[in-house]
C-alpha cells in the first residue's frame, strides 16, 4: 500500500533526484520511473519536499511492517530474522536435545496457530516490500554520504583492511534488526549495571561489604584477578546451570515472611533494595503449554513486550550517558589536555609531573596493598548515604571557597605565559597601472595577487581582490601584526621574483614591471602566541 504511494505519485520526484544526483548508480532500480517522469520538470523545492516525504513514508512502512511483526511475537520475529540472517544463533541452538519430543510437538502446534495470522500479509509480498524499501533506504544512506571526506586518508587504512572488506556493508536493515535483537537481550546487562549501582550506593550492604573484602583480597594477592573470573565462571554460571537442571532441593517450602534482621544490613543499609527477579526458586519451563492456555501465552507476551520496552528505554538512557561521557571526555581531551586554557592546562601538567617524581622514587617503598585496599574502604565509607552528609558538614563551604580562591590565584600568578610568540612575515603587492605615457604610473591597488600576465584575474580582465588603503589589509586568521614594525618594501626583488617564479623586468624602485602593470612587494611581521587548539574532526 505504502510502497505504491512511495513509488506512485512521488516516483517522478525521486526519479528526477536520482537522475540529477546519483546518475548511473541507481539507474537499474529506477530506470522505468525516470523514463516515465523525464518529461516533467520538478523544482528543487518540490524535489526536497518529495524526497523528505518519501523517506518519511518509507520509514513509516518499515515501522508498520515491524509492528505487524510485533503482533505475532518477539520470538517469532527474531526467529524470522535469525533464519534470514543465517547466523549461527539459529533457533535450534536453544532446543534441548533431552526434550526433543516436547519442542517438536509444541512448535508444530504453534505453527498451526500462527499460520492464519501470517496469511493476512502474504509472505512474498512482505518480503518484496521490505526488500524494496530497504534497497531504497540503503541507497539513500550510501548516497547521502559525500564522496570526498575531508579526512578520508584517515579512514583508508580501516576501509582497505582485508579483514574488514569481507564484512557487511552499512545497511539499515541489518542495523535495525541488530538493534532489535540486542535490545531484547540487553536485559541482563542492565540488570548487572543496576546491581553495580546498588553495590556502590550501599543499597545492598552485605554485597558491598563482600565486594570490599574481595577487593582487599585482590589488593593483597593480585593472582586472584585471574582466579576470580574463573571462580565466577565455575560457580556463578556453571553450578547455576547444573542446579537448574538437577535441583538439590535444599528446603521444603519457600517461607512467606522473614523474621529478624541482620545487624550489618540494619547498620549499613543505604536505602531500600529495589530489585526484582531475585530468589533461589528454580523456574521450570513448561514445555507443555498448549494452545488452550491462551492467557498464559498472552501474559508471557505482555511481560516480554514490557521487558523489551524497558530495555529499550535503558538502552536509550545508556546511550545518553555515553553521549554525556563522550562530551566530557572530549572536553578534557580538546580543552584541558589540549591547552585551550593555557593556565589551567599548564597547572595540571605540572601537578601531574610533580606527582610522577615522588611516585617513581617513593613508590617502591610504599605498601601498595595496604594503601589501595584502605583507600577503597575509605572511599566506599565516605560515599555511604548516611555518612556523606556528616562528612560534608565537617568540611565547611567557606574553606572550600577559600581553597578554590587560593588555587585560582596560584593558577593566575604562579603560571607565567611569556613565551616569545611565533613570528612570520606577510606580503602584499603594491600594484601600479601604466598611465598615458610609458613613464607615468598610476597607483592601482594593494593586492595579495601578484597580477602578472599569467594571473587568472588579469586573463579574465578583472581587477584582482585588493584595496586602496593599506590600513584595510588585515593579517591572516589567528595572526596579528607586530605593532612596532610597519610595512616595508622588500628590496631583495631578485629573490622574491624567483620564489614566485616570475621572470620580469626590474626597475630601480624595486618594482617588477610588465607591459601594463608594475608591482613591488611589501612585507610586514606578524605574530601569534599560539596556534589554535586542536578540535575534533567533525567540528573543523
Amino acid at each position: 500500500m505504502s510502497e505504491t504511494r512511495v513509488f506512485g505519485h512521488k516516483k517522478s520526484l525521486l526519479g528526477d533526484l536520482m537522475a540529477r544526483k546519483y546518475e548511473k548508480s541507481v539507474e537499474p532500480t529506477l530506470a522505468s520511473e525516470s523514463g516515465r517522469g523525464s518529461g516533467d520538470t520538478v523544482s528543487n523545492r518540490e524535489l526536497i519536499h518529495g524526497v523528505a516525504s518519501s523517506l518519511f513514508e518509507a520509514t513509516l512502512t518499515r515501522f508498520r511492517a515491524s509492528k505487524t511483526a510485533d503482533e505475532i511475537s518477539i520470538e517469532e520475529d527474531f526467529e524470522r530474522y535469525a533464519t534470514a540472517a543465517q547466523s549461527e544463533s539459529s533457533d535450534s541452538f536453544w532446543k534441548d536435545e533431552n526434550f526433543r519430543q516436547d519442542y517438536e510437538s509444541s512448535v508444530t502446534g504453534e505453527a498451526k496457530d500462527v499460520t492464519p495470522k501470517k496469511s493476512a500479509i502474504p509472505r512474498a509480498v512482505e518480503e518484496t516490500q521490505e526488500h524494496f524499501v530497504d534497497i531504497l533506504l540503503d541507497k539513500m544512506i550510501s548516497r547521502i554520504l559525500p564522496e570526498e571526506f575531508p579526512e578520508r586518508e584517515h579512514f583508508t587504512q580501516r576501509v582497505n583492511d582485508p579483514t574488514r572488506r569481507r564484512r557487511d556493508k552499512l545497511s539499515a536493515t541489518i542495523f535495525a534488526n541488530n538493534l532489535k535483537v540486542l535490545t531484547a537481550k540487553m536485559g541482563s546487562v542492565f540488570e548487572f549495571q543496576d546491581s553495580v549501582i546498588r553495590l556502590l550506593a550501599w543499597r545492598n550492604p552485605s554485597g558491598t561489604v563482600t565486594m570490599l573484602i574481595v577487593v582487599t583480597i585482590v589488593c593483597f594477592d593480585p593472582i586472584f584477578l585471574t582466579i576470580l573470573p574463573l571462580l565466577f565462571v565455575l560457580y556463578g554460571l556453571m553450578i547455576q546451570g547444573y542446579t537448574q537442571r538437577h535441583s538439590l532441593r535444599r528446603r521444603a517450602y519457600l517461607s512467606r515472611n522473614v523474621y529478624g534482621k541482620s545487624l550489618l544490613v540494619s547498620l549499613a543499609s543505604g536505602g531500600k533494595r529495589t530489585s526484582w527477579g531475585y530468589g533461589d526458586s528454580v523456574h521450570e519451563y513448561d514445555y507443555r503449554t498448549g494452545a488452550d492456555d491462551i492467557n498464559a501465552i498472552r501474559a508471557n507476551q505482555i511481560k516480554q513486550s514490557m521487558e523489551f520496552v524497558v530495555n529499550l528505554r535503558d538502552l536509550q538512557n545508556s546511550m545518553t550517558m555515553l553521549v554525556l561521557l563522550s562530551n566530557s571526555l572530549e572536553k578534557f581531551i580538546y580543552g584541558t589536555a589540549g591547552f585551550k586554557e593555557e593556565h589551567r592546562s599548564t597547572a595540571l601538567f605540572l601537578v601531574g609531573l610533580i606527582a610522577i617524581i615522588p611516585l617513581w622514587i617513593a613508590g617502591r617503598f610504599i605498601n601498595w596493598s595496604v594503601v589501595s585496599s584502605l583507600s577503597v574502604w575509605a572511599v566506599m565509607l565516605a560515599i555511604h548515604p548516611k555518612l556523606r552528609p556528616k562528612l560534608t558538614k565537617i568540611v565547611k563551604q567557606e574553606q572550600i571557597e577559600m581553597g578554590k580562591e587560593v588555587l585560582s590565584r596560584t593558577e593566575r600568578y604562579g603560571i607565567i605565559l611569556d613565551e616569545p610568540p611565533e613570528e612570520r612575515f606577510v606580503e602584499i603587492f603594491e600594484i601600479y597601472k601604466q598611465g598615458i605615457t610609458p613613464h607615468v604610473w598610476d597607483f592601482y591597488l594593494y593586492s595579495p595577487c601578484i597580477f602578472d600576465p599569467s594571473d587568472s584575474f588579469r586573463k579574465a580582465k578583472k581587477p584582482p581582490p585588493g584595496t586602496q588603503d593599506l590600513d584595510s589589509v588585515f593579517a591572516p586568521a589567528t595572526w596579528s601584526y607586530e605593532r612596532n614594525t610597519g610595512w616595508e618594501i622588500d628590496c631583495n626583488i631578485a629573490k622574491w621574483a624567483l620564489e614566485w617564479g616570475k621572470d620580469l623586468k626590474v626597475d630601480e624602485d624595486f618594482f617588477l614591471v610588465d607591459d601594463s602593470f608594475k608591482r613591488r612587494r611589501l612585507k610586514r611581521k606578524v605574530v601569534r602566541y599560539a596556534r589554535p587548539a586542536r578540535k575534533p574532526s567533525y567540528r573543523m
Partner: protein
Amino acid sequence: MSNESAKIYAKLTQNAGQKASLTSSIVPQLAWALHRLYPALIIFDGFLSNVLWCCDDKCLPFINLVLWTLAIGLIDPRGSSFVAKSVYVWLGLMSAFFLTFSWFYYVSSVVRDLEQAEPPTADDIVIVMENVVFKLKRLADDFRLLLDRRALRRLTVYVLLLTPFYVFATHFFWGPRDILTGILVIGGLFHSSWCQSTLRLCWRSLWVRRLWYFLSPQSNGVSQAKPYIVLSENSEIPFPRALEGIVGHELGIKLQKIISDPIVWDGDHAGKVNVKIVEFQIDENQRKWPSDGWTSGLLPYERPKFSFTANTPWLAASSPWEFQENLDRCWFWMDDCWKPSSWTYFDSGWRFKGQNDSIDCYTRNRTWKRKAYRLL
C-alpha cells in the same frame, strides 16, 4: 556582508619557494666533492633525526636507547647471582652486537640505495645540508633557551666544584655504569620534543623560576648606583641684586625660578653662584598579565615597581614621591613636579621591543623625570 568581502587578508610569505638551480652554477670539482659527501651527509642527518626524535618511526630511537643502556651494562653487569649476571652479560653482548650490525646495515643500505637511485643533483645535496644545519641549530637552541652564556659559565663552575661529591657518589651510591646510563638517558631524551616541551612548561611555573634565580643570583651593579644623570657638572648662575646677602638654603630656594627660567641679566647682578644640575630618573615598571592586563605586579626576580635606570641593569627605588621626601636637603628642584615619559615596551626578559604594545611585549616602563640642582 559587503564589509566582510572588502576585507583583504595579506598572505604569509613562503620560505620554501623556488630557488635558483645550483646544478649549472657550481664548478664540477665542487659538485664531485658534494657528491662524495652525500652518503655521509645522509647518515649524519639520520643520526641527528634520532637525537632530535624527529624520524618517521619514533620507536626506533627508543629501542636504540634501550640497547645502548643494556650494552653499557657490560661495564659492571647487574644481578647478584651468577645466573642473573650471565643473563645481563648475554643481553649486553647481544645489544652491542645488534647495535654494531644495525649501524653497518644502515650505512650499507644507504650506500646501496644511493647506487640504485638516480644520482643526486647539487640541489638535493644542498637541501640535505640545509636540513643538517637546521637540526644542528635546533640542538644549539635547546641549550640556548635554558642557558645563556653567563649561566653556562656558572654551570660549568658548579659542575667542577661538585667533583668531590661525584667521587663520593660514585664510590658509595652509583657506579660508573649507573652514571653513564643516566647521562645516556638524559642525553638521549633531552632533545626530544617531549623533554623540551616539559622544560618549557616547567619554565612557566613561577616557583621553578624562583628556584633557578635563587641558584644563579644575578648581579645588579648596585655599588655604582646613582639615581640621576648629570646635566651640568658646574654651571655658573648669575643672580640679581635683590638676592644679595642671601646664602645657603634660602639662596638655593630663591634660585629655583632663575635657573628654571633663565633671564640674561645685563651686568646688574650681585654675583654668581656655581651649581650642579642633574635629572633624577625613576622608572616605573609594569608587566602584562593575561587576565588583568598591565599591572605593577612584577615577578620576584625581576626589577621591582620602581627602579633607577641610570644604572645597568637596575637598582630598586621607591616611588618618585617617596623618593623626594627622603632626598637630601642640599638638592633643590628645578621642575615643579615629576613628569613621565611615554611607555616603552619590552619582551619578558626586558629586551627593547618598541613604543607600541604588541603580542610579543610582556613588560613596559616609563621614566619619571625631575630636574634638580645643588649649590657647589
